[in-house]
């Protein structure tokens, strides 16, 4: 089978990208999804707060997903469920397996990577102790509880203050569990302020910053965990240990873009984002392969995923229609407090008149300004009262100010 555009993943990024491709007048589209439903992770994110930017109202995850799914059905965009993509080649042949089709390969003029991300597992943390039942990543617990209807645990400790962990602290409390505390190894929370207030403070759940789990006790099932304060090098401080009796430990310790397939297609990955390096058209180093959503870099707002995927879909469609000439890239350097930017490079000659650059900072900063320098000259300065790693930032760049520029950098400087 041959398609103009094949999209890997039917979550918020894939759905939005598909609709954008269709809007550009392309009929031959295929979305491949491994789950038995479209919608991706939104199906288990039953809390509200989605869609404030996109729909100007507060929706729950399933409602937000449904708006996009209905449009995809309306547009009669072809999709396959229960299909696991196992390979993508750099000439855009996509191989998948499913019960219905067996082993299949489809050819695409453009591929959009929209596989999302997965959670960092316990194995990445080196916590001592046995391997008893009762240790879950926060997202796994969320799925078990919200879709499959299990209670998961009665007495809970949560490691990591990422948003999913905070949301699950409230969720488990509402379902009658006792959440003893949330421990965060960093001196600041990785989650949104609003979640700290409405998920922890509302239910008097303590948040211990600069603390981590140093031991998990129990052989068959978790019986208790030991938490200790850490120093500035994140080493546990002897004498600060506290033991909490519990039957469940949730881990909310970060998300990793899921790029095994990208690697098979020789897509270059960033060591900072763990996602593909892309240009302003969301194209990777492999011609005709585009990326968007959490597989590109982890977002905190689905609204931004949707708008980013909408752009990626538009660019992929334009690529299929051959509206793009030779590429010549200007690298965007991130430094002095800016961890990375997306895109990492800009094709100034072919770029739109105005593009969005999204980025994250490396620490909590107060009284700093976001500065863009072109060939050493300041072309943008935005004063910020506060910047935090948990909140994605964005700025706009105009084609007019980038023409002829050799060196471009985004950094933080003291506000004046």
């Amino acid at each position: 089978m041959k398609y103009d555009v094949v999209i890997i993943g039917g979550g918020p990024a894939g759905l939005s990208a598909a609709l954008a491709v269709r809007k550009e007048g392309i009929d031959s589209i295929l979305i491949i999804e491994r789950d038995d439903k479209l919608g991706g992770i939104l199906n288990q994110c039953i809390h509200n707060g989605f869609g404030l930017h996109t729909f100007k109202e507060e929706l729950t995850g399933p409602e937000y997903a449904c708006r996009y799914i209905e449009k995809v059905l309306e547009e009669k965009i072809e999709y396959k469920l229960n299909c696991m993509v196992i390979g993508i080649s750099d000439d855009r042949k996509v191989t998948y397996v499913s019960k219905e089709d067996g082993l299949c390969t489809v050819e695409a003029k453009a591929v959009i990577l929209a596989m999302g991300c997965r959670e960092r597992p316990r194995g990445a943390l080196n916590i001592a102790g046995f391997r008893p039942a009762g240790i879950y990543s926060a997202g796994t617990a969320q799925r078990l509880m919200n879709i499959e209807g299990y209670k998961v645990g009665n007495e809970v400790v949560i490691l990591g203050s990422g948003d999913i962990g905070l949301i699950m602290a409230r969720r488990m409390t509402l379902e009658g569990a006792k959440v003893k505390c949330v421990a965060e190894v960093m001196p600041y929370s990785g989650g949104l302020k609003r979640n700290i207030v409405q998920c922890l403070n509302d239910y008097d759940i303590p948040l211990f910053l600069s603390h981590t789990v140093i031991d998990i006790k129990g052989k068959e099932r978790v019986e208790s965990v030991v938490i200790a304060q850490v120093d500035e090098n994140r080493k546990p401080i002897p004498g600060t240990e506290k033991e909490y009796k519990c039957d469940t430990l949730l881990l909310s310790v970060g998300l990793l873009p899921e790029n095994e397939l990208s690697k098979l297609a020789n897509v270059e990955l960033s060591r900072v984002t763990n996602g593909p390096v892309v240009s302003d058209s969301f194209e990777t180093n492999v011609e005709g392969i585009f990326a968007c959503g959490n597989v590109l870099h982890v977002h905190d707002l689905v609204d931004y995923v949707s708008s980013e995927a909408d752009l990626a879909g538009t660019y992929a469609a334009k690529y299929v229609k051959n509206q793009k000439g030779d590429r010549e890239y200007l690298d965007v350097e991130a430094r002095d407090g800016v961890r990375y930017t997306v895109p990492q490079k800009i094709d100034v000659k072919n770029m739109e008149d105005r593009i969005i650059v999204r980025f994250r900072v490396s620490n909590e900063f107060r009284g700093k300004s976001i500065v863009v320098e072109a060939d050493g000259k300041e072309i943008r300065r935005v004063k910020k009262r506060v910047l935090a790693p948990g909140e994605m930032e964005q700025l706009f760049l105009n084609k007019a100010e980038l023409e002829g520029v050799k060196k471009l950098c985004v950094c933080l400087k003291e506000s004046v």
Partner: protein
Amino acid sequence: MKTREMICIGCPLGCNLTVKIDGENVEVSGNTCNNGVVYANNEIKNPTRIVTSTVKVLDGDIERVSCKTETAIPKGKIFDCMAEIRKKKVNAPVRIGDVLISDVAGTGINVIATKNIEKEG
């Protein structure tokens, strides 16, 4: 007079507010802008929250249908609301917006479905 500490969630700045409560009189300090005063007043006088959870589905293609209170309910009613949600069972199919519980916990507010559930098979 009582004093309460809270974090304003009006913007990412997240000001630490100190709120002095003297009867009807609320005095806010620690805020950067007026949003802090509005937020603190709401939190003291009438704190409300939208509650989201799931309800058991009979013969559905999945076990639970996600739900929410149609609008925010008083914070003090959250656990009464949850007790009713936990007791409730509904039959598939369910459509987004279907009323699952009307007038939950005497708040006058309905609990509605936030997911479409098909009949199993």
